[in-house]
């Protein structure tokens, strides 16, 4: 039995502002490219079928579950992962809100929740609790019961507004 030959494809994309170029099999998922090829292990795999949201990243600013996208589909795209949110060593206000309001426990779902919150607050800077709960239902957390996550997103909205108005940069 001859082993199957799998041709590799070259992909070029931008991850957290840096150019990345590599060779992947057609079946390689974006999350595998990020974790195994680019070494960005902050994006996690909890289900690999798009249900848990732990692998959420931004592709061209849109929230994407990176287990549902092939790496070759991301060719030419700008990707932002959890590692790309902090700037100059300072946590992004959303990250800071998750820390100060205990919006996480084991941390495995956290990068996904932070990215989903980032996408939500980019669209809707001042969401109600219902809106937060509806939006974040894309992600699963087994530890927190969501209460402190929702509180963290509310706090993040408030911090982000201050941050954007230059009061707390």
């Amino acid at each position, binding site marked *: 039995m001859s082993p199957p030959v799998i041709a590799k494809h070259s992909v070029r994309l931008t991850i957290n502002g840096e150019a990345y170029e590599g060779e992947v099999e057609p079946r390689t998922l974006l999350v595998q490219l990020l974790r195994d090829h680019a070494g960005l292990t902050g994006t996690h795999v909890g289900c690999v079928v798009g249900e848990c949201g732990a692998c959420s990243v931004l592709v061209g600013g849109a929230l994407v579950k990176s287990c549902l996208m092939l790496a070759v589909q991301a060719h030419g795209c700008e990707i932002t992962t959890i590692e790309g949110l902090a700037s100059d060593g300072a946590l992004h206000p959303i990250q800071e809100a998750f820390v100060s309001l205990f919006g996480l426990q084991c941390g*495995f779902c956290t990068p996904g929740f932070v990215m989903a919150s980032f996408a939500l607050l980019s669209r809707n800077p001042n969401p109600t609790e219902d809106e937060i709960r509806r939006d974040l239902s894309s992600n*699963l957390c087994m530890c927190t019961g969501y209460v402190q996550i929702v509180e963290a997103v509310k706090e993040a909205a408030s911090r982000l507004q201050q941050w954007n108005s230059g009061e707390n940069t």
Partner: protein
Amino acid sequence: MEQRREYVGRSVRSKEAPRHVSGRGRYVDDLSLPRMLYASILRSPYAHARIVSVGGGAAAQLAGVRGVITPDEVRRLTRPFKPGRYAAGLRVPIPEYASAIEKVRYVGEPVAMVAADTRARAEDALERIEVDYDPLPAVVTAEDAASPSAALIYEELGSNVAWQGYVSYGDVDSAFKNADRIVSENLKIHRYSSTPLEPFACLAESTPERLTIWCNSQSPDVVYEALSEALGLDNVRVIVPDVGGGFGQKIHLIRKYAVLTALMAVKTGRPVKWIEDRSEHMMAGGHSCEQEFDVEAAVTASGEVLGLKIRDTDDVGGSVSTLTIHFTNKLNNLFNTYKVQHLRLEGRSVLTNKCPVVPNRGIGKPGMCFVWERIMDCVAQELRLDPIEVRRRNLIAVSQFPYTTPNGNIYGSGDYQALLDRALVNVGYHEVRRRQAEQNAQRDRGADLVTSARASRKAGSPPRLRGGVPWLAPQQSQHPSSPGSNVTHYIGIGVVIGVEPGGRNAARDMAIFPQSKQMPGAGGVEGATVKIEKNGAVVFTLGSPSCGQSHETTASQIIADVLCVAPERVSLTSTFDSALSPWGISSSNSGNNFHLYDVGAVHGAATRLREKVLTLAAHLLAAEKSMLRIEDGVVYVGRVPRVANEQPASGPAVGRVPRGEREEMPSGPVVTFAELGKVAYANQAQLPPGFEPGLQVTYYHSHPHADPLMLPDAHGRVRAQYTFSSAVHAAVVEVDAETGRVRVVRYVIVSDNGTMINPSVVDGQIYGSAAHGISVALGEGFVYSADGQLRTLTLLDYGKSTTLETPHIEIEHYPVPDPFTTLGQKAAGEGAAIPSPAAIASAVEDALAPLGVKVRHLPLSPEHVWRLMSGRT
């Protein structure tokens, strides 16, 4: 010197969170080693089959494949696990290996493993492994399995009923003779899991010197023992990095995979990583067991429960290794919060062709609480009494603490009536009742206008009570509900109470298996190391791993208070490493152990280190040790400090004690931790005579109040656990009249977790465990087909609650410090998962009282509730 509490009791900023929000967590799958291979596992597609042959040759030929392990090799190269304490009841010893050998007994049981250069290639190769199965009849329900004609899952046992036994306390027969009434019910809890978001993960490296495994195990001891036993190795190192949730899932079955991964590393001579995927975890990672209870309560006319008889059937799936794990854990909360003196619990463990069972948040205890709280409601219904009043009549009174239960558990402190009082106020109990009565009246008015098909269908059924509150509205109604009603849902409220045991005592099992040849361990032992570095930084090492419970944060707060430094200067050296961590029998992220054993160890180590600091500082400052004070890592000669307000021994005081008035920093001589560090590690000439160099203390803690009843007495009384938190849960639900969907409108908890070290961390544990119990009650669970195929392979099919189904849980703390623990603390990790299924059941039953519905079985999925409402169960 005064012990201060500046940081204990405060929601001090999390030490773990900054790395997790930045993607800097380090889980097993984030680690790589040079020349590392990736493994993948071939699993059984059958629930029950004989393995005729397994051929790995074609898979091994595939390019990039470096190793194949078949059942023959597992049998040849490894030894079976020794039966653990949860298999103590086995009639004949049954060797269990890391993979299936001659038979598969559940869908997903591991059969073979492949390692290759990439994970994808390893998965490709699985398709080339040739397995010849001879399918056998699948035995899927406990009822079928217990039938004498059922196919045998383990032929050597002669029956699928693998264990039967009982415990009995008090004089149960007399209690039943003296009863005015016997209340009987059949109750069931379904199969579920805690589904940690990070599945099992192992990375093994074998060198001639030792075998090292990085593994997300909650109980490294289980993996350590398993590797030693199975592979015959005496130099094993177990490292547990960040763990993506445990909840009990990562205690037992993970040892199989640790052994297979390690065997592959030995065989290939290369590091091997194996990461489980979600569907593998759902089918083979371990489930809670399906439990059925036939319960009889002996009660007086006034609602006092004199005694309880329970016959418990546990469906333990297709393995004998955790045969009695759910039964034995019921000893931990056998009497819940009640002063009942007579109880008999019979158990039987039935094997089925389903996933083996493992602990889940609270294991066994949610079932026991469900029994008690459902029975309290049943008693109230039968006697037409208020369910809250029935509970009040049976609660242990505040004056009875410390209280010893008939089976030997000692409840240090508590105030159950007060918890109930607060919960009723917080949930607005009477207002809910008023709204409910109003709505039911409205519905009945609507019903009078319409001829209800449903009512006519049920014409033969006995008259039902109207209103959700039988004792408030005793009128009868023939037309309880109707499609003509303009009310679209039913409102109900359930109020339940439960204890949360903490701090494991493994000797508990000897009360059930007195014939055990070997004591399974008794009491607890756990270590911690606290060190002041040469530069004055304070670092520590815990004896146990963490799975997200903020152990670094809370331990730092304790150390900060004892050593009088800011928590920012205190940090964890590393996560668990068996070669470095001071570990003992209690070094497990399970059993609600941390609050008792790790806190005791950290506090003890810090206290002893403080003595070293003061001894050295006194020598350097030429001062009396008793005159020294420490402030922010600086030791100086101060006046005798004023006494801080002492925390009362009991009563609802919050953990934080105000500091005594601070004194001004003196102008006299001082010495900093950094200066002490330089002397302690580098300058023998400046050390006091007899002073052991260095500023490091390793302290092993055991519970100083572990006796009496650490070991079972002649009556089988033993302390199953050592601390007992308690909580009242009040749930308000709306049940959709058309679909049966249950929405939790309010969820109020009043909780006594003793002295809280970090209230926000405790909140997080309560929110999370409550949310899990609520999700379980509302429908999360495993479903098997009649031929033993698991139908719930994904989290979506399984029905895990999201932000939408999970209510906004409200907590009030009512801490009554424990008189026997280091800081008055009690457990908080499992608690709210214990009463929450009962709370939802109680609320749904209350809501559907107008329909005469009785809730006896979980889960309350829309389908099940709809069937209850339609009388189609």
